[in-house]
């Protein structure tokens, strides 16, 4: 569907909000607005303020502020909105045999952000975002632990694994995560095959083979 098709099929008020939202995300993730394909940010992926706040907080809990900014600090929450709308990390694949009540898009894929909000609220016994900070961290940590059980990966992985993967992508491919938290050198200029690895040695975000193969 082209941007023109999308606009033609939407009420004017919704369209204005939609475009405004897209421009906001463009600013947040540091991408020129022209590069963002508006047609892909459908209404059902436009987040409420509460959802944005939840995604920011979750990102920050996964990668908190230290000597360098945390993931929430640099807009990874909004990157998640963008990435989930576009199906990065395989998130637009239709859910096979979905359980009743799962928040699905029309194409059968999971609305991961809505799922996460619901899951965290359920675990917190109410509004997760309004819970005390230790409680928020505790519930997220439990969700994370359960998503990575011992042994081979589960046949039906927790949706959290994709969300967490995108948080890491959003952070470590940002300028802060890639070049301040980790090291980035586009043109090393030489290869030293064997040098000492000391505890203070920072990893490279520009080791493309390591990034490819994990």
């Amino acid at each position: 569907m082209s941007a023109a098709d999308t606009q033609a099929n939407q009420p004017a008020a919704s369209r204005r909000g939609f475009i405004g939202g897209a421009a906001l995300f463009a600013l947040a993730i540091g991408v020129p607005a022209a590069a963002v394909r508006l047609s892909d940010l459908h209404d059902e992926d436009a987040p409420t303020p509460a959802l944005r706040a939840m995604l920011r907080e979750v990102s920050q809990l996964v990668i908190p502020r230290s000597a360098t900014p945390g993931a929430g600090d640099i807009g990874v929450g909004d990157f998640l909105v963008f990435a989930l709308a576009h199906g990065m990390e395989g998130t637009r694949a239709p859910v096979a045999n979905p359980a009743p009540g799962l928040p699905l898009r029309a194409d059968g894929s999971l609305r991961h952000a809505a799922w996460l909000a619901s899951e965290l609220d359920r675990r917190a016994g109410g509004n997760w975002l309004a819970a005390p900070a230790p409680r928020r961290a505790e519930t997220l940590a439990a969700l994370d632990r359960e998503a990575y059980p011992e042994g081979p990966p589960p046949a039906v992985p927790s949706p959290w694994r994709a969300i967490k993967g995108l948080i890491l992508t959003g952070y470590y491919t940002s300028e802060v995560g890639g070049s301040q938290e980790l090291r980035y050198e586009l043109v090393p200029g030489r290869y030293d095959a064997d040098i000492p690895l000391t505890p203070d040695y920072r990893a490279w975000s520009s080791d493309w083979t390591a990034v490819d193969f994990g």
Partner: protein
Amino acid sequence: MTAPMNHEFDAIVVGSGITGGWAAKELAEAGFKVLMIERGRNIEHQSGYDREMKAPWDMPFRGEGDPDLFARDYPVQQLNRHFTEFTQDHFVCDRENPYVTGDDTRFTWFRSYQLGGRSLTWGRQAYRWSDYDFGANKRDGHGTDWPIRYADLAPWYDHVETFIGVSGAAEGLAQLPDGQFQPPMPLNAVEVDLREKIRAKWPERVLTIGRTANLTQAKPEEGRAHCQYRSICARGCSFGAYFSTQSSTLPAAMKTGRLTVLTDKVVEKVDYDPATQRVTGVRWIDTKTRQRGMATARMVFLNAGAFNSVHVLLNSASEAMPNGLANSSGVLGTHIMDHANTMGALAVMPGFETHTSFGNRPTGIIIPRFRNMDRLDGIGHTRGFSFQGGALQSGWTRGKRQAGIGEGFKDEMRQVGPWRMVLVTFAECMPRASNRLTLDHTRVDANGLPVLKIDFAFGKEELAAVAEAKACATEMLTHAGGKVLFGSDTPGPGGTSIHEMGGARMGHDPATSVLNAHSQAHGIANLFVTDGAQMSSSACQNPSLTYMALTARAAAYATQQVKAGAI
């Protein structure tokens, strides 16, 4: 580029990739007026590498790419290891360039339609073949005997290696002959240890650094710097540090003043004159305007890539040659091959926690074949398999596979991850008549040309070789102290190795082969096919260097024939 006013040339070269560049260079330097025709767009060296210097944060999808776009336009190409948001424009749009496969065929055809072709995206591994390879068909009776042996090609390997620049270590191995090497890139600590431990237990198994067409010494006379150890070669390299048409052969050919390059023109047919039994030129379709054009020449070199050169020949059928040009034998399109490829073993390698490296080495290692050389000792197969791979340290993406959040997790991701060693299997593919290319005249592409149909399957020999390779990879890594996490004895789809070859094989007998020992069509003295289509067997190491050597050799032969008045 502007079409020439005069469409008469001494030689036409169809394709501008690894072998097209070589044909153009050698023929232009020999004094011929050459036309090179490329079906894809022009990409200028340096200025045309649009995304070479971008950081992930400069990219809309952080370098990972738009999943919708990839699914729609690149469903096959996105499976290529080198395909990313940075390199996507160096691969074909699958939607616009369809091919079909037989009912039982799985084949991923990776393509790059642009000036320079796949020379921009290739893996740069440059290995000589040996007489174990050129003698393989004769020894076990599969396929047809090669009409050449290593001695025929050795001086041409020298010629090519010296010009393109190949770094590597001399090892004195009969199965992987040494060449004219620039200094090798070093092995890392894990690889050094593995090499020694393997050699101590299995002296016939030699782990050595990959022989790669990345310069370790600059070639300033050709405007080429040494490798900068970025390992992002497929984006294009402004330093000219790896061999590509743009960095190497094209400038040399242009320097002669005798080369004309046409881009955005797909060659439809080669014209044949039955009266003279010569080809007379080619016809093309402009891929932008759909206008047809043509040029004539004294000789034609097909270098469109193995499968596309066969496509041109099949589509050049005429009243005189109803089954396709140069197909009086009926074997045109048959005996296609691609190495059976899979992850032999992946292991964590403990004991190197205080070691790391600086820079991104753009090559891995190779363990050349050690089976079925002087005695037939393979289990269920008569050819070879080799391993490529390397030791690497994990990066931040390992965090996607493990539990953890918060400060401790962030600190852990800040550290270099554990060493792992990968051995990827490349098993020789047997030449089989049933693995073949045909034209599907019921379907046409956007240019109105019939779509290529691929029928391909591995047989019991490849499956046996891959199974034995898995066992060997596992025992080697385990012996060296590794903890094997994974290994596979199931090859990926055909095409996975991106070493598709054959279809216009060389042979002694015009009744059973398409080309003679000089890459020259049987019975058509001025038609040469010098890309992967000419291969009669597949060996188990990368074929591009051999394609280049065969191209240079064929160009020299063509030059002699012209001088002798035979062409």
